[in-house]
C-alpha cells in the first residue's frame, strides 16, 4: 500500500504529468480536495434537478409532470445522490484541503490511497445516475432502501447497491486517511487540545465512518444475496424479517446523520470566532460534546422505527436516549452564541452563513426533539413533518455550513476574495427561499400529508404550491454560487495570507493561494 511519506513525493510532482493525467494521478491533498468539491457540486446540481422535478410534480394535486413510478425513482435517487454524492464528499474535500494546512502537515498520511478514495467516486456516480436508463429504471425504494421492496426491484437496485459498496469503500479509505493524518502528522507542539475544532470534529466523524459504513455495506449485501442467491435475511417467507433490515440500516443511518453534521459543526466553530474576534467559547466542552454526540448516536437508531411495533420499553429507551443527544447539541449552540456574545461582530459572507446556520439548524434540532417523542412520532412518521425536520438539519445545517466554509476558505484556495455582494445575495436568497420551501412542510406534515407520494389531497394544495415556488427560488439561487466561484477563480481582490483579520490558525500563515506544497518543513506551534 502507498504508505509514502508525503515529503518524499516532493520532487516528482513538479515533473509529473500534465493536463488530465495530472488530475488522475495526483496525490496532492489540495488537488484531491478540489476534485472532491467539484465532484460533490456536480452531484449537488444533479440531485437538485431531481428535487425540482419532484417539486414540480407536487406543485398541484393530481399527476402532471411525471408518472408515479418515476416519481418514486426521483425521491429515492435524490436522497442517495445528496447524501452520498453531495454532502459527504464535500466534507471530505474540505478535510483534504484544510486538515493538513491546519495541523501543519505537508500532505495526508497516505497520499496514493487518497487518490484512490477520490477516483472510486465517479464510477459510483455513473452507476447511480446510469441506473435511470436501465430496464425498470432506477432504484425506487426510498433512500433507506427498505426491504421487502428493495428485494423486489429491478436491476436499478443492484446498481445502487454496487454504487453504495464503492462509495462505502471510498469513505472508509478517506476516513482511515484522516484518522492517521490527524493522529500522526501534526506539527511539533500541535497537541490534540490545540487542534482547530474542524480537525477534532473530522477525527470523530472519521471514527464514525469506519464504524458504520461497513454495517451499511453489510445491510445492502444482505439485500443483494436475498435478491439473487436465495438467502432469506429479510424475506418473511423464508423465515427472515423485513424489520431486521430497518434495524441494521438505522444502526448505520443515525450515526450517518452525525457524519453529515459534525464536520459542519467544525466549520462553524472556525468561522464564528474569526468574525466575533474572540476565541471559541468552551473549546474543551466542544470537543467533549462532539465525542458524546458520536457515542450516543449508536444508541438511538430505533427512533426511526417507532411504528414498527416495538415493545413499550424499547420505545421509551430510544425516546429518552434520543432526547439525551439534544443536550450535547445544545451545548454547542450555546457555545457559539456565547462566542458571539460581546464580540466585535462583523457579518462578512462566511459569518452570515454561519449565523444563518445556527438559526435554522436549531429549528431542525427542535423538530427532531418533537419527532423523538414516541407518541407524537407515531402520528408524524412518514409525513412531511419529517421531511421538514431533516431538510432543516441537512440543507440549513450541513449545506449552509459547507457554503460558509467555502466562502471562508475560498481566498486561501484561489488567492482571491470572493465577491461579497454576490455572496450576500446568495445567502439571503438561499435563506429566504429555503424557509419558503421547507417551513410549510411542517404544517403539511402536522395535517397528515404523507411523504414520498406523487399526489395529495386537495386541502394540502396551497402549502405545496408555496413549497414548490420556494424550491425553484432556492434552486436558481444556487446558480449565483457558480458565478461567485468562477469570478473568484478568475480574479478579484487579492487575498492576503491572513485573509480575514480575525482568523487564527496555521492555514492563515501560508500565502494565498496556498502553494502546491506547504509545510514541507513542519512549523513549530508554541
Amino acid at each position, binding site marked *: *500500500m502507498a*504508505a*509514502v*511519506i508525503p515529503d518524499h513525493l516532493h520532487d516528482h510532482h513538479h515533473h509529473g504529468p500534465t493536463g488530465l493525467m495530472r488530475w488522475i494521478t495526483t496525490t496532492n491533498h489540495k488537488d484531491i480536495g478540489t476534485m472532491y468539491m467539484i465532484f460533490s457540486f456536480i452531484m449537488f446540481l444533479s440531485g437538485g434537478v431531481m428535487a425540482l422535478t419532484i417539486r414540480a410534480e407536487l406543485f398541484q394535486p393530481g399527476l402532471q409532470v411525471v408518472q408515479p413510478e418515476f416519481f418514486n425513482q426521483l425521491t429515492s435517487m435524490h436522497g442517495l445522490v445528496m447524501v452520498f454524492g453531495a454532502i459527504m464528499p464535500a466534507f471530505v474535500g474540505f478535510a483534504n484541503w484544510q486538515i493538513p494546512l491546519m495541523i501543519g*502537515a505537508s500532505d495526508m*498520511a*497516505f497520499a496514493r490511497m487518497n487518490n484512490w478514495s477520490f477516483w472510486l467516486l465517479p464510477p459510483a456516480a455513473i452507476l447511480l445516475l446510469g441506473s435511470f436508463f*436501465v*430496464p*425498470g*429504471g432506477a432504484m425506487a425504494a426510498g433512500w433507506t432502501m427498505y426491504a421487502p421492496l428493495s*428485494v*423486489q*426491484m*429491478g*436491476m*436499478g437496485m443492484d446498481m445502487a447497491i454496487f454504487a453504495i459498496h464503492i462509495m462505502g469503500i471510498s469513505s*472508509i479509505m478517506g476516513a*482511515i486517511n484522516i*484518522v*492517521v493524518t490527524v*493522529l*500522526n*502528522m*501534526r*506539527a*511539533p*507542539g*500541535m497537541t490534540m487540545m490545540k487542534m482547530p475544532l474542524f480537525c477534532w470534529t473530522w477525527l470523530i466523524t472519521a471514527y464514525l465512518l*469506519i*464504524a*458504520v*459504513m*461497513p*454495517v451499511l*455495506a*453489510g*445491510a445492502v449485501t*444482505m439485500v443483494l444475496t*436475498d*435478491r*439473487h*442467491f*436465495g*438467502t*432469506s*435475511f429479510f*424475506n*418473511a*417467507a*423464508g*423465515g427472515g*424479517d423485513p*424489520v*431486521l433490515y430497518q*434495524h*441494521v440500516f438505522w*444502526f448505520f443511518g443515525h450515526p450517518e446523520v452525525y457524519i453529515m453534521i459534525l464536520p459542519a459543526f467544525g466549520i462553524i466553530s472556525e468561522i464564528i470566532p474569526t468574525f466575533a474576534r474572540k476565541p471559541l467559547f468552551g473549546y474543551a466542552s466542544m470537543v467533549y460534546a462532539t465525542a458524546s454526540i458520536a457515542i450516543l448516536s449508536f444508541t438511538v437508531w430505533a427512533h426511526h422505527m417507532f411504528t414498527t*411495533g416495538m415493545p413499550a420499553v424499547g420505545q421509551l429507551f430510544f425516546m429518552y436516549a434520543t432526547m439525551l443527544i439534544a443536550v450535547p447539541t445544545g451545548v454547542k449552540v450555546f457555545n457559539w452564541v456565547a462566542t458571539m456574545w460581546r464580540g466585535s461582530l462583523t457579518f462578512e459572507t462566511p459569518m452570515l452563513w454561519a449565523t444563518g446556520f445556527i438559526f435554522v439548524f436549531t429549528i431542525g434540532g427542535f423538530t427532531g426533539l418533537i419527532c423523538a417523542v414516541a407518541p407524537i412520532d407515531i402520528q408524524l412518521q412518514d409525513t412531511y413533518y419529517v421531511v421538514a425536520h431533516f431538510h432543516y438539519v441537512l440543507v440549513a445545517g450541513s449545506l449552509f455550513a459547507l457554503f460558509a466554509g467555502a466562502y471562508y476558505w475560498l481566498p486561501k484556495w484561489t488567492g482571491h476574495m470572493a465577491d461579497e455582494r454576490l455572496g450576500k445575495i446568495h445567502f439571503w436568497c438561499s435563506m429566504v427561499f429555503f424557509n419558503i420551501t421547507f417551513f410549510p412542510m411542517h404544517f403539511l406534515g402536522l395535517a397528515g400529508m404523507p411523504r414520498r407520494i406523487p399526489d395529495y389531497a386537495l386541502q394540502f394544495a396551497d402549502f405545496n404550491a408555496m413549497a414548490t415556488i420556494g424550491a425553484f427560488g432556492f434552486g436558481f439561487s444556487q446558480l449565483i454560487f457558480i458565478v461567485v466561484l468562477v469570478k473568484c477563480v478568475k480574479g478579484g481582490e487579492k487575498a492576503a495570507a491572513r485573509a480575514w483579520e480575525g482568523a487564527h490558525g496555521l492555514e492563515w500563515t501560508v500565502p494565498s493561494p496556498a502553494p502546491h506544497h506547504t509545510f514541507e518543513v*513542519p512549523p513549530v506551534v508554541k
Partner: protein
Amino acid sequence: MRKAGGENRQLLIRLAVAAFVMFGFGFALVPFYEQICAAAGINNLLQPDRSAVNGQIDESRTITIEFDANTHDLPWQFRPLQSEIKVHPGQLVQIAYEVVNNRDYPVTGQAIPSYGPKVAGQHFRKLECFCFSGQTMAARERRTMPVVFVVDTDLPADVNTITLSYTFFEVAGTQASGGDAGGRS
C-alpha cells in the same frame, strides 16, 4: 507528532481491521435480533400461540371471522373453504383452506398471516396452522389444510369482525426465479 511511515501503516492496518470487524458486526446483528425477539416474545409469527387462558366461552358475544387468501407471485390456487363463520370468544374452532400447485414441479411456499383490524391479532390464537412451517407441494398436488384457533374472551368490545388473511410466498431458492417486478428475468 510527525510519525515515521511504519507507525502510519500500523494504524492503517488497525483501522482497516476495525472496518472489517464492523462489516461482520452487521451480520452479527441478525442472530442478535432473533435472540432479542425470542426473549421479548415478539415476532413469533411462525409459532403456535399459547392456548386460551381459561376454557370459558363468552356466549354473549358473536364475532364474525372472515377468511381471505392471497398468493404473491406464486401460481398456486389458494382459497378458504368457507368465506366466513360466526364464533363466540373462547370457542375452539377448526376451519380449512385448500391449495393447489399448478406447476409441474414441486414448490415450497410459506404462508404469512395478517389480521384486520390489527389489534385483533394479539387476541387471535392459532393452535394449529399450515403457516407454522413451509409447505412443499408436489407437482399438481391438491391439499386441504386446517387451522385451529380460539378468539380470546378479552377481545376489545368494539371488534365484531375479524379478517384473517394469508399470503403464500414462494420460499426463495427452491426454484430459479425469485419473482419480481421490473428488469430481471
